[in-house]
């Protein structure tokens, strides 16, 4: 545990001494804020236009209109930002030669991987918590339901953790950070849209592909449905990513 904390602290130090963390968090907040503001404004206009009509006004739901759209947009931003956050985690160690220090220290490979994973998850948490400020205004001036927002954030967190685990794996393959980031994007996008292929395949494969997609599981959580199946899905993707990183590193040693 001490070793994991040491690695996490070191990664956070490097993230925050270099402009990396500030730039990524800043850009993320800028874009997600932009989305939130525009979605909210659009919802506002709709409310003013149709609020007088009792039928339409009953259909105007801030959770559905604003938060659902916002969570989906944010998930795409995470898909673009997180591989840039994770690309350096192993690739940089290899390029600098510092992996020789890590692997000749009394640490296990798992401790190194988990320490690094946690550091990126902490930055993800900082990003998500900072966006919580947006909700202050919706709660001040409106009456959204809290539960779907919480499950939506939980969805973003689980989704982000899975992205980080996959990014960690692609970073462990190469010493080139750009290659790590591109492989990360590719993998994430493929998992995102994999359910699109389900229309062209047989029934059994349709089921499997739908279950594999990031999108399908995220949808439930955004709607406010807390299903352990979705949580387990994200946790297994996360574990699988970390496991692949572990395998890659161990395999390289023995080659």
């Amino acid at each position, binding site marked *: 545990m001490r070793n994991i904390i*040491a690695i996490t*602290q070191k990664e956070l130090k490097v993230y925050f001494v270099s402009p990396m963390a500030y730039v990524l968090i800043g850009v993320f907040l800028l874009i997600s804020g932009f989305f939130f503001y525009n979605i909210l404004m659009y919802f506002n206009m709709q409310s003013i236009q149709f609020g007088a009509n009792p039928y339409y006004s009953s259909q105007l739901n801030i959770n559905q209109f604003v938060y659902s759209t916002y969570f989906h947009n944010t998930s795409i931003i995470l898909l673009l930002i997180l591989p840039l956050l994770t690309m350096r985690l192993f690739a940089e160690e290899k390029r*600098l*030669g510092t992996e020789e*220090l890590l*692997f*000749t*220290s009394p640490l296990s490979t798992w401790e190194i991987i988990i320490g690094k994973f946690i550091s990126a998850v902490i930055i993800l948490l900082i990003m998500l918590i900072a966006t919580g400020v947006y909700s202050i205004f919706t709660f001040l001036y409106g009456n959204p339901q809290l539960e779907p927002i919480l499950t939506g954030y939980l969805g973003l967190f689980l989704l982000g953790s899975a992205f980080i685990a996959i990014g960690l794996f692609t970073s462990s393959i190469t010493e080139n950070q750009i290659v790590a980031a591109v492989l990360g994007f590719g993998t994430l996008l493929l998992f995102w849209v994999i359910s699109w292929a389900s229309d062209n395949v047989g029934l059994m494969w349709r089921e499997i592909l739908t279950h594999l997609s990031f999108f399908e599981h995220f949808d439930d959580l955004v709607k406010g449905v807390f299903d352990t199946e979705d949580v387990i899905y994200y946790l297994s993707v996360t574990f699988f990513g970390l496991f692949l990183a572990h395998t890659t590193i161990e395999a390289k040693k023995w080659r």
Partner: protein
Amino acid sequence: MIRVENLTKKYGEKIAVNNISFEIGEGRIWGFLGPNGAGKTTTMRIITGYLPPTEGRAYVAGLDPIINSREVKALIGYLPENPPLYNDMTVESYLAFVAKIKGVKGKKIKENMEKVIEETGLEDVRSRLIRNLSKGYKQRVAIAQALIHEPKILILDEPTIGLDPAQIKEIRELIKSLRKDRTIILSTHILAEVTQICDGVVIINEGKIVANGFLDELTKSFAEKEGVFLRLKNFGPAEKLIFENIEGVKEVYEGNGGVNIEWERGANLAEKIAKVAIEKGMGLLEMRSLTPDIETIYLKAISQ
């Protein structure tokens, strides 16, 4: 302390280290010599547990670096060929990090850090980013990193590379001062370094050991002749005869701008010859051993 048995390391088809065995006793400083690509770094990496061997075994304090990985790694301070530094950290935070991952706990972290900062002369740069340090300072930080957990064994891969002559001298003094109860392996290209610091050497060429032993033993075994070289003010046939009449002297001849006197193996007449030269008023200007220096041994060993 360190024992290597029939060690072989292959990278694919390429054999980097070919069936080598040697042993280094506790408290010794041992030099690794050899041309680039001879297998020095690979051997060191196997001893540190960074690489597993293809065949054979290494033992560090009786433990296998792969099986007892944690214990062995905690025993060893390792300076890799490329200094393993994080450019975006300050010297202090870097050393504290290394101390933690090497298993140093609590107050000891701060204590050990102060100690190595003093030993390696890093006081002036302790709170600067490693990125902004000169090459000499970076190398010192890398050495400090290897010392931070007070390891029993030090493995230094070219510790003086890239430093200026004054810094090289400092680092050598540092290494000498570190020996106390430590076992040290260092690889180098600078042959003078070996004679100044080391007790013995392993000379590796193309993955094989071509010479191994204490320096004085190697010197003896590589010696073709034993004797002294003299520069004298007065030297003529009469003086030559005087030397030839000393018991045990094999041959006296002029060459290399002076007089060479060889004696029978093991006779060691240096003192007697000097005495004679002074007593007979020959005007002794210079005197040195004819036994081979490390350069001769090295070149001979790798050309075998």
